[in-house]
């Protein structure tokens, strides 16, 4: 009996679900909209023939297949928005409402009747609005589904977008990104925000890192040619506000943009979808050919290098989007105000051509400007050669040091996030009091090669340097500098460098050091993320080659106080082991001839052959 009862109950459930599903399938919401439209249209109809025609119509899926613009698209929007082209429905509520006519859209009025410039039968709907053309339910069709990559631009915000920015991401102006798919002219009236965004792309020096085909050639950041195809506007906006919101490892600087600027940048980036519908692939190819030709012909015509031209270039190319120069400060990269006293022309030119050749972990992109332009900029920077008359150590610190080392001396100045190695935390007494004063004076005088710490020798007199050091010790270290007993370390490495010794050193390195310094010895081992200050990059030749053997011995054998580097003598490394290690580290950092001599030849070769001969 219970079997039969179960049978009856379950059969009933199956029946009910069938009923619901069939009802759902046969009574669509769009049918109701269409029926409503037919009724209202009949009441508006003026002739019997019109009424007859309406009577003959029954609800059906209305679709436009657009084949002219890119991949063919199927737009079924008119299934609900059936009155979009019927001028009598202008005052009605959506979805039964006439699509507005506007002269801005190119529509014209003839004999009291509007004529559309963009006929829906030719263009469809999603080409301007985005959304999901095939969808027949508003949730899917309008792209409210969080997984849909193309929500209706300016109309729909998806549920999982950051609530802080959501309200800023709607508005018809976002559709300009789609207008620009066809209207690629730089001065087109309908795409004002795209143009503003493009301007900002150069003003904020985005072009330095990012490539956009036909606009810029940066290589440091991702190619943005198709960024509008890959990301929704919420991503573009939020990533511009905080580059580490979606990608914690991003080293893109935070640029301070106003909401209006952000909107323009977002719309500009959204308009970058790779292929413009306005251009055929052949047309694009031709355009690219002409562009490269124009570039080549433009190069030799660069004006002769003069400081005035350099100053102009610095303004034009937005160097101060990152650097500080006089009053302008991008809060990202080093201060260039005294550059003429700090660096010579060789250093500047080598650094321009390849910043990593001087500061191996620099994030400054390689700007592919002509050599004459670089020379102009160098010439201008060389004129920045008057030191201010700083009076006290405090004044010096506030003006020259605080931008990196921080107002509080904690190594967290405005630029610290973008400098690798990071500025020293001057409040860490354990470190500051474990090194002799001479070493700090040396760093102040000659800088720390391979890092962003510049030589202050010509900016500050010796007295000034001493006074700023005193200020640092009094204000940040706060403990009296103790009398240091030098450790027993050899002056020179007693182990002669040989293939055997290097091999032994490598084995010790792999065994003991890779956890922090990494298998590549670049300071990026698995533990490095949790360590402040970060482990040294042992492949930073500029740095390693200026560190004498006895300092390496001291750091390895007795550790570096105030950092994660332990005292390895406690872990069983003998002096000979460390000798092998040092030979291994030195073997990775050969004394190179200044690369400034070979790099122009190399660059030109790369430009000619399109591939770097060193990697070939």
């Amino acid at each position, binding site marked *: 009996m219970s079997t039969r009862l179960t049978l009856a109950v*379950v059969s009933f459930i199956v029946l009910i*679900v069938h009923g619901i*599903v069939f009802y*759902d399938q046969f009574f669509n919401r769009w049918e109701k909209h269409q029926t409503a439209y037919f009724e209202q249209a009949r009441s508006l109809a003026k002739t019997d023939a019109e009424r007859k025609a309406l009577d003959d119509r029954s609800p059906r899926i209305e679709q436009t297949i657009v084949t002219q613009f890119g991949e063919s698209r199927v737009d079924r929007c008119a299934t609900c928005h059936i009155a979009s082209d019927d001028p009598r429905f202008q005052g009605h509520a959506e979805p039964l409402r006439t699509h507005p006519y506007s002269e801005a859209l190119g529509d014209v009025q003839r004999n009291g009747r509007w004529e559309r410039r963009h006929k829906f039968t030719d263009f469809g709907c999603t080409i301007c609005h985005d959304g999901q053309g095939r969808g027949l339910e508003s949730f899917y069709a309008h792209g409210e589904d969080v997984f849909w990559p193309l929500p209706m631009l300016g109309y729909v915000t998806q549920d999982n977008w950051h609530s802080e920015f959501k309200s800023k991401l709607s508005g018809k102006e976002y559709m300009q990104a789609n207008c620009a798919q066809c209207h690629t002219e730089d001065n087109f009236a309908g795409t004002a925000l795209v143009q503003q965004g493009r301007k900002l792309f150069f003003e904020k020096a985005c072009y330095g890192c990012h490539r956009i085909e036909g606009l810029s050639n940066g290589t440091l950041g991702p190619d943005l040619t198709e960024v509008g195809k890959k990301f929704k506007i919420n991503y573009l906006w939020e990533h511009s506000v905080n580059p580490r919101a979606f990608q914690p490892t991003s080293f893109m600087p935070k640029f301070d943009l106003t909401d209006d600027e952000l909107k323009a940048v977002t719309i500009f980036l959204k308009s970058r979808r790779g292929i413009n519908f306005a251009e055929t692939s052949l047309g694009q190819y031709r355009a690219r050919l002409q562009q490269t030709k124009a570039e080549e012909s433009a190069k030799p015509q660069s004006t002769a290098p003069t400081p005035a031209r350099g100053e102009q270039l610095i303004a034009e190319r937005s160097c101060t989007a990152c650097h500080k120069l006089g009053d302008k400060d991008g809060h990202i990269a080093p201060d260039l105000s005294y550059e003429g006293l700090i660096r010579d022309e060789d250093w500047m030119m080598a650094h321009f051509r390849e910043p990593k050749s001087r500061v191996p972990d620099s994030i400054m992109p390689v700007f592919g400007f002509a050599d004459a332009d670089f020379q102009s900029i160098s010439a201008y920077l060389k004129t920045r050669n008057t030191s201010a008359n700083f009076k006290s150590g405090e004044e010096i610190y506030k003006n020259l040091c605080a931008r990196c080392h921080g107002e509080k001396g904690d190594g967290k100045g405005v630029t610290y996030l973008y400098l690798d190695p990071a500025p020293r935390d001057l409040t860490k007494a354990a470190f500051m009091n474990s090194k002799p004063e001479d070493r700090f004076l040396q760093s102040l005088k000659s800088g720390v090669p391979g890092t962003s710490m510049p030589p202050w020798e010509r900016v500050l007199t010796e007295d000034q340097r001493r006074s700023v050091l005193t200020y640092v010790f009094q204000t940040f270290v706060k403990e009296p500098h103790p009398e240091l007993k030098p450790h027993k370390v050899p002056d020179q490495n007693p182990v002669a460098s040989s293939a055997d010794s290097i091999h032994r050193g490598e084995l010790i390195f792999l065994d003991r050091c890779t956890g922090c310094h990494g298998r590549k010895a670049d300071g990026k081992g698995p533990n490095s993320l949790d360590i402040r200050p970060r482990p040294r990059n042992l492949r930073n030749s500029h740095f390693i080659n200026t560190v004498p053997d006895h300092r390496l011995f001291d750091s390895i054998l007795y550790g570096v106080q105030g950092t994660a580097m332990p005292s390895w003598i406690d872990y069983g490394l003998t002096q000979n082991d460390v000798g092998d290690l040092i030979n291994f580290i030195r073997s990775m950092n050969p004394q190179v001839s200044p690369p400034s001599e070979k790099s122009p030849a190399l660059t030109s070769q790369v430009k000619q052959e399109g591939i770097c001969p060193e990697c070939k």
Partner: protein
Amino acid sequence: MSTPTKSSLWTPLVKLPENVWRSIFRNPLPSSDLGRASTSFTNFFLHVHPVKVHRNSLKATYTLGLGLMSFFLFFILVVTGILLMFYYVPSTTQAYDRMLDLRGTVAFGIFLRNMHRWSAHGMVAVVFLHMCRVFLTGSYKPPREFNWVLGVLLLLVTLFMSFTGYLLPWDQLAFWAITVGTSIASYAPLVGKQVKFILLGDSTVGQEALLRFYVLHVAVLPVVLTALASIHFWRIRKDGGLSRPEEEDALPSDAATVAVVQAPAVVMATSPAAAAAAEPVLQKRHYGIQGLVRGPFTKVGNVPDRSTFAWPNLFMAELVVFLITVAGVLLVSLFFNAPLEEPVNVMHPPNPAKAPWYFLGLQEQVSYSAFWGGVGIPTIEVVLLLLVPYIDGKVAGVGRWFARERLLANFLFMTFVVVNIILIIIGTFFRGPNWEFVSPW
């Protein structure tokens, strides 16, 4: 008014419907035991079943209907799958659009997809539960060892079926789940990379992989699964029906037959010793084809037992299980839509990229050790499962849930089950970006 001539002319016509009916269904609705036996015996679809079935096999609390449920889920999958095939194109440019079409325009499209997706997930779960039932009741013991092996193979084929189907929608979920899944396969020693390459037809998931997974999913694997399932069913009959406690066989069906019952014949070949003892007697006699048939059968009228006629008891029970399965799938499909994420974006993996839920235990293991978690331990587990009836072949505690005699075996098996379920739960709910531990609430 009718004359004899007229009647002879009209009789065939009048009787035509009845004759046609009779030619197809040889038996009227049975009212006697003979009729019931005959109905089962002469009907193609019913003759897969025994004519008489043990009462123990009909106990819902014993089988929980899980085996049938997995079969019916497979049946739903075949039907909905064939309907979906009318709309699907295994091409990277079209597959996702077809999913949108199914969701937006095809009549019943979204419902078909829901049913197919949820039945597939359900089948993986139910097949696994069925395996647990068989183990916990000790039903893999002789003479059912090989059917257990077939069952384990069926579980693997089911998993592979579900896995190959996962790629077909060609959305982010599919793409990255298969990327993760096939990378797990590539950790296998020696052949790992080759297996991955053969599966994908390329070094990454792309058009070739989609086509291969499609063919495997709609042609190869269903045939393999059908074949294995057929043997699985056939073996149930040949191994003497579903397992049951030994003492059940000794029990008379009712008091009237007690006097007649002597030694039960069912133990004939279950123990080799008994078979050997019977040999000399058997040698002296001549046998027809019946004599070759060995094994403990449920024979009609032969064995005094607690069996009952399949018609209507078994068929009714099967119908109930079928309807419960259908109702379950329908209800879930009504309330939950099968996920469809963004179209594939090769450059932008979701973080974390997760495999289908039934492989998340594996993925969790892989996060500790690529080889051991992804290949070593699963291989050992499968081999152990296959060998279970040969390691633990002692016939004791068969046919009862959690029999005390099988405490150790059940404990070990439950440990395996619970550990895997915990790993799956951790992988599903407790893993966030970079596979770091997150709290789901």
